[in-house]
């Protein structure tokens, strides 16, 4: 599989009145052609900053202090602003969380969808509008020809998110970055949007980076998953590896704190105690250690490197060190292990 995006050792700092916030502290990831990579993490973990760095859409007080963002082997961080403009919304495009604020309220949606084509491809206005109509039909806006003359307020929340998606894909981008595209939507609408993204991926062959904090959504859309905490990735692997064979205690905590439909009211929810660290002064050891019931002495002293679980699955926890003591993960995680084991054995037979 070809890597169309390869991010290496990314560091992003934010200058604030209180000092420098080290929001991203060394992130490596890649995106394979045609796949969906999900990045999960809590607010403030740095998932949005990571993907915005790819497009260099960061706030004024932010700076990428180290790292490379290789797109087909070329470092995007070395490109001029003009070269970036040619990529944004064209080769690499982005869907934002809030469909209410990412559309221009004073412009008809037909014009908004056609705009990227007019800017990038220098096609005629008539052609651009024709294409806009096709794409609006593709994302499931009924009667697109007539509705192109309408303004954003004349659409529902779910329809607006469809329009935002239409704008992002009108130029058939190679990479689509979706930053919490369904968080503001109801579950039934969320399900429709996820189906739509899957369908579009098959039709136009886009690779997707999908950011969310909802593990349920991840399970449905991702080929691979990366879990982020306090500005670093802590675990990544295929969707099955991360959900059925998780290795990092933070991943355990996330999976364990969600009630399943089988959790009864008598069972207490397992929560992760405490709150994430302040990245003004990142801890010297593992950032998750203070909240981690499985923390070892070394976690407070030294950041764990990534340990290899399989050739696609890595986790940054000292528990995977050969000398680490054996620990018993939460019951719900053990059940996930068992399911996976049974599967793997089933596959062998």
């Amino acid at each position: 599989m070809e890597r169309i995006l390869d991010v290496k050792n990314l560091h992003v700092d934010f200058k604030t009145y209180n000092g420098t916030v080290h929001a991203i502290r060394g992130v490596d990831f890649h995106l394979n052609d045609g796949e969906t990579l999900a990045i999960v993490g809590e607010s403030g973990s740095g998932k949005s900053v990571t993907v915005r760095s790819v497009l260099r859409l960061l706030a004024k007080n932010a700076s990428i202090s180290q790292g490379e963002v290789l797109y087909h082997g070329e470092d995007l961080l070395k490109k001029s602003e003009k070269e970036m403009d040619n990529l944004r919304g064209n080769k690499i495009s982005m869907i934002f969380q809030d469909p209410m604020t990412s559309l221009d309220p004073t412009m008809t949606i037909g014009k908004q969808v056609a705009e990227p084509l007019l800017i990038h491809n220098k096609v005629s206005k008539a052609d651009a509008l024709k294409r806009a109509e096709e794409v609006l039909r593709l994302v499931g806006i009924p009667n697109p020809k007539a509705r192109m003359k309408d303004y954003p307020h004349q659409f529902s929340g779910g329809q607006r998110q469809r329009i935002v998606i239409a704008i992002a894909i009108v130029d058939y981008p190679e990479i689509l970055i979706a930053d919490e595209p369904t968080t503001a939507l109801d579950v039934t609408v969320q399900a429709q949007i996820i189906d739509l993204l899957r369908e579009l991926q098959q039709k136009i062959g886009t690779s997707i980076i999908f950011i969310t904090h909802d593990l349920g959504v991840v399970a449905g859309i991702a080929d691979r998953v990366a879990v982020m905490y306090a500005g670093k990735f802590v675990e990544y692997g295929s969707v099955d590896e991360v959900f059925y064979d998780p290795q990092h205690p933070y991943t355990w905590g996330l999976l364990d704190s969600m009630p399943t439909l089988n959790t009864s009211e008598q069972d207490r929810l397992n929560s992760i105690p405490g709150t994430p660290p302040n990245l003004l002064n990142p801890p010297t050891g593992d950032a998750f250690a203070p909240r981690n019931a499985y923390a070892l002495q070394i976690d407070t002293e030294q950041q764990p490197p990534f340990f290899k679980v399989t050739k696609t699955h890595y986790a940054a926890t000292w528990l995977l060190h050969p000398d680490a003591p054996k620990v018993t993960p939460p019951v719900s995680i053990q059940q996930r292990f068992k399911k996976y084991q049974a599967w793997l054995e089933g596959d062998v037979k």
Partner: protein
Amino acid sequence: MAEDRNPIVQVKHLKQYFNIGKANEVKAVDDVSFNIYEGETFGLVGESGSGKSTTGRSIIRLYKPTSGQILFRGEDISKLKNRSPKMKKFRSEMQMIFQDPYASLNPRMKVKDIIAEGLDIHGLAKNDDERTQRVEELLDMVHLNPEHMTRYPYEFSGGQRQRIGIARALAVDPQFIIADEPISALDVSIQAQVVNLLQDIQRDRGLTYMFIAHDLSMVKYISDRIAVMYAGKIVELADADEIYNNPLHPYTQSLLSAIPVPDPEIEKTRERIDFDHSRHFNDQQRFQEVQPGHFLYCDDQTAAKFK
């Protein structure tokens, strides 16, 4: 069954319309009836715009109901006048926890004064020492450090702010709390902390909750009974397990089929059920009990099928 228990809140044919008589009239809540029993957690789910928050806000009388009755411990509160002594008493018995912990705390007030505001209004603290002591107890109850009472809201995280909101609601010693999406603005790892806290407090103090949410797995976990709302109507109401194992209304079925579960195997094989509004509603339908404790908004023929 729940029917043997004492209803703490009875809602009878509640209607809450806005912009009445104008072109943009909205029937946010359209003839809704249900009981909430002492000590239970009553979950109210529905999508945005379904009227679930409006129902909560009408019950606590942030709105004046258009018609219908709201009985609290048998007394009709739907027509009480603002600032009347009865209303004041009622306001101390029923409290609300809001969705957004960033918007629901006054940024210019110290945590101490935010929590004590209810004590001041209802004259529940005789002097400053007692007031401070009470605030300390409340902060302790929600697992916040009492030493932080002189801080301002911005100094706290989202989860901590929601705890402050809970402490404020508890200050006046209410019996009934309406929690309107109290965890949807919080991260997954923090949600469980707040839900556990709410359950501990309920157990310790024998509180009754109305829990409004769109996160169905959390509602199923926390609720004894669940009502599903759609377009201003309750379309189905039953015990939490019953709703999940035996959903009868097409909308409930559609909603349940859309909940994402953190399990790739389930997600990959999931079949979603679409719901077509126009096909499932007509004026022959009414809200009726089709099986013991299981209510459904349907016509009489459909009801007969389930009986």
